[in-house]
């Protein structure tokens, strides 16, 4: 019996690996066919490159003030014009990509890790642990999310890092619930039963079988969540609770220039466009990923 068990484990893993590899391969094949998703991917890659090469691309330092040249309309010298401190908006928008993407990725990474952990525990062990964790999620979801974020930042003090933490926290229940439901269905699969039957430890089952098999929906949800996180960061920045001056956070740039809406519309248009485009990019890409990775969509 012991011999049999030893033989079976590696066999199973091998089979699973090929299966999952083909899932990703198949997904990529289908994603490639989806033109709109590719546009999304293109936008996202564009902004990532912008963020990485900001110091090379930006013609000016984002914090260089030149009060004599304030509120200048777009020109060849200042492509997007200048703000009320005479700072180059083009450079600020480029540097702003760093902040927004940084907040987007890391806040979502944070909520994915925390959410998955809680979701797996809730789904796998069930009973009272599930009760506690699920009710916790319910409570968090009962708050309007931006209000919860404002509350968290108010307690921690306004800064970019705290805004990131707040956004991560408010997104935990979304991921938690998603994973929990995945776990509940995967738990019933035969290979999990088999793994249990041969005495595999819970941790091993959770992290070697259940988690990898839940990755696809997490990635889809994660991509979409980055879009929302960027909007939330901008909202917190707009309220003065996110990035602090002189950091060029897009939402903060909007807030700073709202007084000049009629006088100097370019101070709002370009950061606004930047927010819109990145969010659109992540949304298109996320939708494409969902179509590509959802097993139910398999023809």
């Amino acid at each position, binding site marked *: 019996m012991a011999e049999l068990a030893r033989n079976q484990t590696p066999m199973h893993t091998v089979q699973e690996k090929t299966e999952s590899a083909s899932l990703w391969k198949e997904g990529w094949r289908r994603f490639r066919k989806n033109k709109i998703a590719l546009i999304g991917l293109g936008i996202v890659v564009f902004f990532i490159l912008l963020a990485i090469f900001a110091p090379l691309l930006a013609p000016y330092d984002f*914090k260089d003030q030149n009060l004599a040249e304030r509120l200048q309309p777009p020109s060849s010298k200042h492509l997007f014009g200048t703000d009320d401190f005479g700072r180059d908006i083009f450079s600020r928008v480029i540097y702003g990509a760093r902040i927004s993407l940084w907040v987007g990725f890391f806040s979502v990474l944070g909520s994915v890790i925390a959410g998955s952990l809680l979701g797996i525990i809730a789904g796998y062990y069930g009973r009272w642990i599930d009760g506690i964790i699920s009710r916790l999620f319910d409570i968090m979801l009962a708050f309007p999310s931006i209000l919860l974020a404002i509350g968290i930042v108010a307690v921690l003090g306004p800064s970019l890092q705290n805004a990131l933490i707040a956004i991560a926290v408010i997104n935990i229940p979304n991921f938690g619930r998603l994973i929990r439901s995945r776990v509940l269905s995967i738990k019933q699969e035969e290979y999990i039963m088999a793994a249990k039957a041969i005495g595999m430890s819970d941790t091993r089952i959770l992290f070697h079988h259940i988690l990898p098999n839940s990755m696809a929906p997490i990635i889809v949800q994660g991509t979409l969540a980055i879009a929302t996180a960027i909007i939330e960061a901008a909202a917190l920045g707009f309220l003065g609770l996110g990035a*602090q*001056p002189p950091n060029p956070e897009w939402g903060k740039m909007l807030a700073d220039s709202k*007084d000049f809406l009629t006088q100097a519309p370019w101070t709002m248009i370009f950061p606004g466009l930047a927010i819109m485009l990145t969010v659109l990019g992540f949304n298109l890409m996320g939708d494409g990923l969902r179509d590509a990775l959802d097993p139910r969509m398999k023809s």
Partner: protein
Amino acid sequence: MTLLALMLAVSMALVGCGKSEKTSSGATEKSSSQDTLVYGRGGDSVSLDPATVTDGESLKVTKNIFDTLLDYNDEDTTVKPALATEWTISKDGLTYTFKLRKGVKFHDGTDFNAEAVVFNFERWANGNADKFPYYGSMFGGYKNDESHVIKEVKAVDDYTVQFVLKRPQAPFLKNIAMPPFAIASPAAIKKYGDKFGENPVGTGPFIFKEWKRNERIVLEKNKDYWEKGYPKLNQLIFVSIPDNSARLNALLKGEIDLMEDLNPTDLKQVEGNKDFQIFKRPSMNVGYVGLTATRGPLKNKLVRQALNYAVDKKAIIDAFYAGQAEPAKNPMPPSIPGYNDAIQDYPFDLNKAKELLAKAGYPNGFEMELWAMPVPRPYMPDGKKIAEALQANFAKIGVKAKIVTYEWATYLDKLAKGEADAFLLGWTGDNGDADNFLYALLDKDSIGSNNYTYYSNDELHRILVEAQTVSDENKRNELYKKAQEIIKEDAPWIPLVHSTPLLAGKANIKGFKPHPTGSDKFTKVEFK
């Protein structure tokens, strides 16, 4: 059947009620467009007991609820009779005798008389810097202090009050006319105790009706006001709209009738509109950066001087005041007697600033907090923007400033405790005397009240106290000029600007003359 009839009768009565209510409220609305003035401003009052506050937002409201013994002329700070009709000064300058106006009643119906005046001054003299901060800084302290100027206040008869001073105080009459030293109803003070600040009772042209914090303060006409035929307005409402642009929008939409702190950059927009008019308040203010002399690197005079060299005042004025201000080099405006025009301001010189920092032992700069006020002030339309400009200035000499802000009342409270490193603030003179700037803001006696920098210099103190007692105008001015030299050298501030505050109102407002002190009495204001 009887039940049904009863119900019918009741419902009819209810309908009747509803109807009559509607017509009556409709009527008040109609008349309100004529004689209710809604005044939009940037912040709410802290308290409506004028003696307990020093901030303009409180005093501009209490100025209309209370009267002082003397008042200022409409457009400058020369004193004129108010609750006191005439006064005599003894030859030695130590005894002031005031004849009081007869037949004046407080809003609660009690009589205004000499006893009431004595009661108010006793109340303040028995207080401390926490309770009545302004009294201490204008009259040299409190009852048991050596430096206290007023020896006693006594009622000679029902309508005669005598002030006996320990030493002559040149600006005494101007001090007496300041809005914080308004005479309140003794009966009401006894009745409300600590809550008097929310239930103010005075003799002024308007009666306090309602205060919704951070929203509005409603005052109603005092029909028995001693100035016959006034006030013209039926209601005076102060509303708080912190954002300058939002306040302008409210004016353009007709939600308010008059607004202060118009963004200088919005001036053009209003000037071209014939439905509105611009009021320019005569400039008597200073906007500054305070450098708290008890905190970190700022303890060092060289560091404070270095920061003075690092600020490009002209660029800031061009950008944020649209030219409606001039750069400041002294802690008081040029319109005040004693202004030292011979002083050369610290020029904008980054190399010199770095040199001084290095000499002070901070060649690579340092980190500090820079506090920005959350509300627009007449001397600073947008504190946060100016802070951001200063932040960039300081960064050039390696000083990393973190911009911090608090709600207005908390902001002042924390400043008074000396918790800020560098902070933005300003001052609008309350009586047009140099004493009200230099002594009130920078003397060591004023630490804890209006000297937020905790700057303390004994020689300066000696000069300022001497200036208070000298009655010869020329000698006084010489002393104040010397004081400004000391202050410039010690650099407890970066004086930024003297601004011309702008107000905008509906074109049909008549009789409104903005006073340089920033507190306006609306007695004579009306709609054409």
